């Protein structure tokens, strides 16, 4: 079995689903001949033709609105926003139509679409190419917000997202697009949406994260283990609708919770998780909840970018602070 990267897993999932379902189409800027600027759609146009792998005019609003129209007509469009920082013109179509079409027509019209976007920083990209803004979407009803953190989860969750009858934002952490390879069988097996994945069992502290930061959280757990602290690591994977039960179960066990995300701190999705922990797990807590996040600033250009990102050290320090209380 071939070992593949996260970006190759995206391509593999798209190719699998396009081969097995004629209604799946891919559209976006440069997704055709060029195979996408990150090569996520590499080779798809050759296999499936110019109409099913469509190079659109350079207008994100067009991509999003056409996606809504395609989906209402029974297609399963997978739209690409070239970078998360360019997704803002799509938001009206996503919030006002994709996410609410089913509700406002009482189920008569639906939008089974996926909006993919390379997400987050850490690749020394130009301005507007490094945004982490998933929290702008988690507050929109009717929308699933999904973020894979490994090649296998990229493959399984993208298949699930395409097959889902409702719109899904699929944010791909571009920093780990090619970070490592793993075995990902091309068997068409989807992973479940709406559930968190417990990636490492632990008893002292729960590290809750998603996307690219999963790698730092796992490394932090290794370092904490070396210091005698047992950390449980949860990959949220589907931010909304949130599987809070899995997080609650863990926090009830460990009594400590560190939330890690790249987006700015205030009103980031970590705030929602912290609030839920306060509502449902307060009496289980042995220490205040910690958040290790980006700061409430614009993602710095790349000379300072890594100072902005949550690091293994910041996660370890936060976990140790929770241990110091009791």
């Amino acid at each position: 079995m071939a070992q593949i990267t996260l970006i190759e897993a995206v391509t593999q999932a798209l190719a699998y689903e396009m081969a097995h379902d004629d209604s799946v189409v891919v559209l976006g800027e440069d997704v055709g001949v060029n195979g996408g600027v990150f090569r996520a759609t590499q080779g798809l146009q050759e296999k499936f033709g110019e109409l099913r792998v469509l190079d659109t005019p350079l207008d994100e609003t067009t991509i999003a609105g056409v996606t809504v129209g395609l989906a209402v007509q029974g297609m399963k469009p997978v739209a690409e926003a070239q970078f998360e920082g360019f997704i803002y013109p799509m938001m009206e179509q996503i919030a006002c139509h994709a996410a609410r079409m089913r509700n406002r027509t009482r189920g008569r019209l639906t939008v089974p679409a996926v909006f993919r976007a390379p997400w987050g920083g850490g690749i020394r990209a130009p301005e507007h190419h490094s945004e982490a803004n998933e929290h702008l979407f988690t507050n929109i009803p009717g929308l699933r917000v999904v973020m894979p953190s490994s090649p296998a989860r990229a493959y399984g969750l993208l298949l699930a997202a395409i097959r889902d009858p409702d719109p899904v934002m699929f944010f791909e952490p571009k920093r780990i697009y090619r970070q490592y390879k793993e075995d990902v069988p091309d068997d068409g097996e989807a992973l479940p949406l709406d559930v968190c994945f417990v990636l490492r069992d632990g008893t002292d502290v729960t590290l809750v994260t998603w996307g690219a930061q999963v790698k730092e959280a796992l490394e932090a757990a290794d370092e904490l283990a070396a210091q005698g602290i047992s950390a449980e690591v949860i990959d949220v994977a589907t931010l909304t609708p949130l599987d809070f039960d899995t997080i609650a179960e863990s926090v009830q066990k460990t009594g400590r919770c560190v939330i890690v995300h790249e987006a700015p701190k205030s009103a980031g999705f970590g705030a929602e998780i912290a609030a839920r922990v306060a509502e449902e797990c307060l009496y289980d807590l042995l220490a205040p909840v910690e958040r290790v996040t980006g700061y409430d600033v614009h993602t710095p250009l790349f000379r300072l970018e890594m100072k902005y990102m949550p690091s293994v050290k910041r996660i370890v320090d936060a976990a140790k602070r929770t241990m110091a209380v009791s």
Partner: protein
Amino acid sequence: MTIAAKFEIEYLQYLDAEGNEVRKDLPAFAKDLDHMVELYKLMLSTRIFDAKSIALQRTGKLGTYASCLGHEAAHVGIGSAMKPEDVYAPSYREYGAQLYRGVQPREVYMYWGGDERGNDYQKEPARHDFAWSVPIATQCLHAAGSALAFKIRGEKRVAVCTIGDGGSSKGDFYGAINIAGAQNLPLVAVIVNNQWAISVPRKIQTGAPTLAQKGIAAGLFSIQVDGNDIIAVRKAMEDALERARSGQGGSVLELVTYRLGDHTTADDARRYRGEQEVKDGWAKEPMKRLRNWLVKKKVWDDAREEAWKAECDEWMDNEVNAYLETKTQPVTAMFDYTFAEVPADLAKQRDYVLSLDQKAH
């Protein structure tokens, strides 16, 4: 001087404001006088429906309502030219087109009366049309996406969207006609230019002398039409639909009309436009010219007008009653259509609201 490209915009009109024929080459459908009577009857029922809606709003039985007064020829012309299998993406006042496609007045009342079920059109072909779109011009891209789906699947269907003169300033409109040109999509984008975007007049909406010419930039067939002349509207629509259906590409139609009423029942147009202008608008309104023309052809008269009005009144009374008798949805309805299935996390909120509602009873 070398000319890189040259363009012109045709203006299409068959009947003047008094109902005189300004050209003799009437299209085939206009020679079928029974059919023309049917179109007139639908225009009249649309106007009666509109007056009933405003009365409902004024008596507190409807929320804010967007009137279609003065747009009857434009809207009925659009709806009557389309085939059932085509798809329509309206903005929010094109009742004349929608009634033709099976939207029921009770559904209009439900929507403006605060009930989402008004968007759940029960009758075909409206059932596969888009629902009203309040965010301006966004529906143009839904039509373009639908047209792309038809092209991918090789279906001989056309997607039609309508927007106002204000809507033609929005990127969504430009985006829709642009991709329609680039991909040769079966899209007909109809600008119903009623001269006013709430309080902003057409002349400061754009410096372009016609709105139709925006289509030229997208590579689409583009034409300006007297939007109060149903023969012209219907003819331009039929031609545009035929071109789109046969793979010859999309069109932009500018239907020049006038908004005789306020923007909505929440608006007071006296704040921003003069009486004379509205009087001029009434002089060119669409019903009178068609009635004059049909009377001259001896297929319509006062007695038939009164009989049809009475039939419409009865129809609308039935529709109003059906609307007023519709029970409010259960409180759980606000959750039940958010996703195909209510996710576990949302089900907790649903259960909570249900418990509050049960306590209240």
